[in-house]
Structure formats: C-alpha cells, structure tokens
C-alpha cells in the first residue's frame, strides 16, 4: 500500500499532536495575562523614566542604604543575601530608591521603607529579549545615549562583538549586538534617527531596514533588522568612524549561521572593516557566576543615578568600556574609587557622568550620574564605601 502524501501526513500528525492539548481561554489564563501585562507596563514606565534621564545613585547587594541629612530619612536594607556582588553604601541627601532589578536571584527584595520604594516582582530575566520595545525604552545601557546592550542587558542571549584597532583601546571602536526581536526596526524621528538601508539586499530593494543617528561628537548608533535573520535585530555603536563607514561596515556583516536559529548567539563575520579595525575577542560568559544587579535612585532635584554590577568578569568590563569610550568620544579621566583604579567618562551631550571600575576580578561596577555637576560626582565617588549601613 502506498504511503500517503507527506503533506497529508503532516496535516494528520500535527492535528493529532495538537489535539493532545486542551487549553481553554479560562479566567485563570486571563488573569495571568493581565498580570504579565501589568509587569510589562511597569517595566516600560521605568525604562521611560530611566531613558528620560531621571536616574539616581545607588548601590548594593547584600545590604543597601541611602541616608539623607537625617539617617532615618532614607534607609532601607535587605540582608542575608549570598553572592559575589559587593555591598556598597552611599550617603546622599534627599534621594530615594526607585527600583532594584536583580538578575541573579529569583527572589527580589520587596517592601517599602521610609523614603524608598522598591519595585517588586521583577523576574530574574527582566530584559524582554523578544520585544524590541526594550530597545526604544532605554533598557539598553546607560540611558538615552548609547543603545548597545552589555551582557547585562541581554542576559545569556544574543551576541556582542567588539571591533577596534589592536592595541589601541582608545582608537576607533565598534560594538555590535545581535539579538532576537519581535518587530522590525523603524526609525524614530523623535530620537533624531534617519531611516537607512543596511546590507546589499536591502539597498537593492530600497528597503529601509535600519535607523541611524549621531551619538556624541564622534559616534553613531545604528539599529537594523538583518534581512536574512527574520527574528533578530542588530545594533551597533561606533565612534571614530564616519556615518558612511559605519553603514558600509554594517552592510558587510554576515551572520555566521544564515538560517540557524542560533545565529543571534554567534554574531557576524565582518567582511568590511575600515581603518584597520579587527574583531577583538570578548571573553566568554561564565554562566556559573552571572550575577547582575541594577539599583536606580532619584534625587529630589531631578538628578539621578544608577549602579550596575555585573559579575561576568572581563566580558562585562570590555563591553562597558567599549560603549563608554564610544559615547565619550574616547575621552576619560583616571580616578580612584574605593582604592581601585577607575575611569570617569563624561557624555556632555546628554549630561551624564559614568564611572567604571573592576571591583574584583569578577565584578565590574558602572555608576551613572545624571543631572549633577562634577563636584557632586566627586562627592559620590568619595562617599562610596563597602559594607552595609551601620
């Protein structure tokens, strides 16, 4: 007896398999969806706040404390948490915690304390990898300026590549991120973006699959939907290159696996690299120690701060450094934080200061301050101390 046509067999097999599942649109399912919608909405609101530059200083892990002029004014703590991230404390007057996002634990500190509101219910994988809304909403590193996600923002998904002139970390740099997405990239004029075609196929078809804008005095941010990777987005941050060079470089990036779903984990092969740039290996993620934390605070005068901590060793530091170099035009100042060498970057265009240091071999800390002057930056740096509040 002849076998049925494959297409017919598929129809039958798929319907038989699917019939194993009964999943009515129940009230319970509806409640779960409503809950998820609420979580997404709160995250989005938070990102808008972050993207708008309302950041604050922060801190911590095992314990967190912010204290104003009166110690009882703003002080909250959650102790007894294990992990490799350091305990840091900053004394600032009149600031409050607005969120704690923790990618290391399934249990997030909860509750309210005088002067501090801690968001609850933030899941460990708090970056929505499949929804590019997260790109626009400022989830990407460091607010509205750079939009390249560090390992912090992408978790273990996606890929990050760094291209620069060997031995010249302050030379022209390009950081490329490739990750999953639900939507295609659309230029947002409100962000000063211009629609562009990225890649030969898009150029030939006149398909505007990307958006580019200038970032800083000497940098560009380019986001695009790779034509050959339907469910992915790519983004790069450059400095020291012209817009034409950036577009040429991006157009020459070929996914390492064209059709495999894993392409966005393996990144691109660069076929066009100007100015002697080469891909610089980024240390692999060590998933056994990927603790990350973001604490966000805001000051009463609209100033703000964030501290990001990432325990993934050299990779985290490399990516933070590359992005900060890109946004600062390669300028930085060497400072000391907690007896450790640190780099201070200023992004004058958007009024941000960034301090980056390797707290331990594993842990990188990036502090962002917004809406403050240099003297406040110095005060914060000097005020940082290890350990929880007494």
């Amino acid at each position, binding site marked *: 007896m002849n076998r049925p046509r494959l297409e017919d067999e598929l129809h039958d097999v798929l319907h038989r398999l699917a019939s194993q599942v009964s999943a009515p649109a129940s009230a319970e399912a509806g409640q779960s969806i409503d809950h998820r919608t609420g979580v997404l909405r709160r995250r989005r609101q938070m990102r808008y706040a972050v993207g708008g530059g309302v950041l604050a200083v922060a801190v911590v892990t095992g314990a967190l404390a912010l204290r104003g002029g009166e110690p009882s004014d703003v002080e909250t703590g959650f102790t007894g948490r294990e992990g490799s991230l350091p305990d840091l404390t900053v004394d600032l007057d009149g600031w409050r915690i607005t969120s704690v996002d923790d990618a290391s634990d399934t249990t997030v500190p909860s509750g309210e304390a005088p002067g501090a509101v801690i968001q609850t219910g933030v899941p460990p994988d708090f970056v929505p990898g499949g929804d590019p809304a997260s790109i626009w909403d400022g989830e990407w590193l460091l607010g509205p300026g750079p939009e390249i996600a560090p390992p912090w923002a992408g978790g*273990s998904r996606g890929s990050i590549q760094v291209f620069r002139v060997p031995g010249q970390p302050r030379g022209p740099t390009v950081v490329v991120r490739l990750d999953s997405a639900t939507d295609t990239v659309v230029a947002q004029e409100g962000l000063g973006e211009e629609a562009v075609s990225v890649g030969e196929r898009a150029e030939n078809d006149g398909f505007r699959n990307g958006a580019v804008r200038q970032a800083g005095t000497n940098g560009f941010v380019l986001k695009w939907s790779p034509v050959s990777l339907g469910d992915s987005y790519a983004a790069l941050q450059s400095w020291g290159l012209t817009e034409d060079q950036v577009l040429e470089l991006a157009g020459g990036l070929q996914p390492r696996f064209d059709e495999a779903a894993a392409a966005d984990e393996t990144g691109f092969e660069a076929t066009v690299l100007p100015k002697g740039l080469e891909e610089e290996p980024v240390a692999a993620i060590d*998933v056994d120690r990927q603790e990350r934390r973001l604490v966000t605070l805001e000051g009463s005068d609209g100033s703000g701060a964030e501290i990001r901590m990432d325990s993934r060793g050299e990779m985290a530091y490399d990516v933070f450094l590359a992005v900060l170099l890109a946004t600062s035009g390669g300028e930085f100042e060497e400072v000391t934080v907690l007896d450790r060498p640190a780099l201070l970057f200023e992004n004058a265009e958007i009024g941000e200061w960034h301090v980056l240091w390797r707290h331990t071999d594993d842990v990188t800390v990036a502090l962002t301050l917004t809406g403050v002057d240099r003297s406040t930056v110095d005060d914060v740096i000097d005020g940082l101390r290890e350990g929880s509040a007494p």
Partner: protein
Amino acid sequence: MSTTGGALAAQPPGVQERVGQRMSVDATVELPTTFEDVFRRQYEPMVRVAFLLLGSRAEAEDAVQDALARVQLRWARLDNPEAYLRRCVVNRSYDILRRRRLEQRFRWLQRPETSEMQADELSDALAKLPAKRRAAIVLRYYAGLSEQEIAEALGVRPGTVKSMLHRALAQLREVIER
C-alpha cells in the same frame, strides 16, 4: 480551536484541502474588536501552535500568555492584532528554545530535554527540524496560513518561506524514507 474553513484560496494546488484549518475566523465572522475577542478566540489555537513548536504544554501556555500580554500592552497601536500575536508567539517560542539550548550547553539548570508529545516516525522527524523550519511547517500544515501570513509571523520574506517549506519537506522525506 476555532475550526472554520477560512479563506484558503491562496493555497497551492493539491494542498488546499489538506492544510490546517485556519486559526482565524472566516470572513463571515466579525473581526475582533476587543482584546477579549482575541484572547477568547486565539488562546487555545495559539497554545496548540506553541505546543507543536515546543513539545511542552506548560511552556506553550507561558509563551502564549506572554505574547498576549504584549498584544494587550500595544493594543491601541496594532492594525492586525492576530498577526502580531502569531509573531509574538513564534518569537517567544524561539526564546524558550534558545534558553533550552543554553541550558543544555552549560548544564545550567539540568533541564531534561523531554517532550510530552506522543512520538512516531514523522513527529520525531518534525522535532529534529531547525526551529524556523518547524515553525513554517506548523503554521502551514497545522494553522493553514498562507505563505504571506507565515512570512509575517516569522519575519521573513514570502520567498524565504517557500524555500524553508521546500527544505523542510525534503528533510522530512529524507528521514522518513530511510
């Protein structure tokens, strides 16, 4: 699952009568006007699609609930919420598959790779297809979508869908004819 005949005129000859029953209602049924409509009509069909991609009912419901939350969040801006939902479901399923691969690669959570599906030769072969090809097959032969609709769901061009289906069928034939 909504089981209507649907507009199958765009299906290729010989396939029309055997491709999946369309998940969306046909033209005689009122188009969804509220999120509640979409939820009621598409929840189970979408869970079944995700189940066929993931082999796990729990993960399928997780993917669909997450996708519906995104639809709800963007409701006011969506011209075609059901198409957007399909795309979200596929991409959330990809996310879960990626997580599984990473978990296996790093032995992180020691999650056993098991499927709740009842196995046979063809379903085994389906499970071995790359994720995108499997998605194309499911959307075509289970959901009964056109190549254009599949392209929208997968975020690729219709020509790519044709190629993916061709390769998937060839791969399945090769496996089951061994």
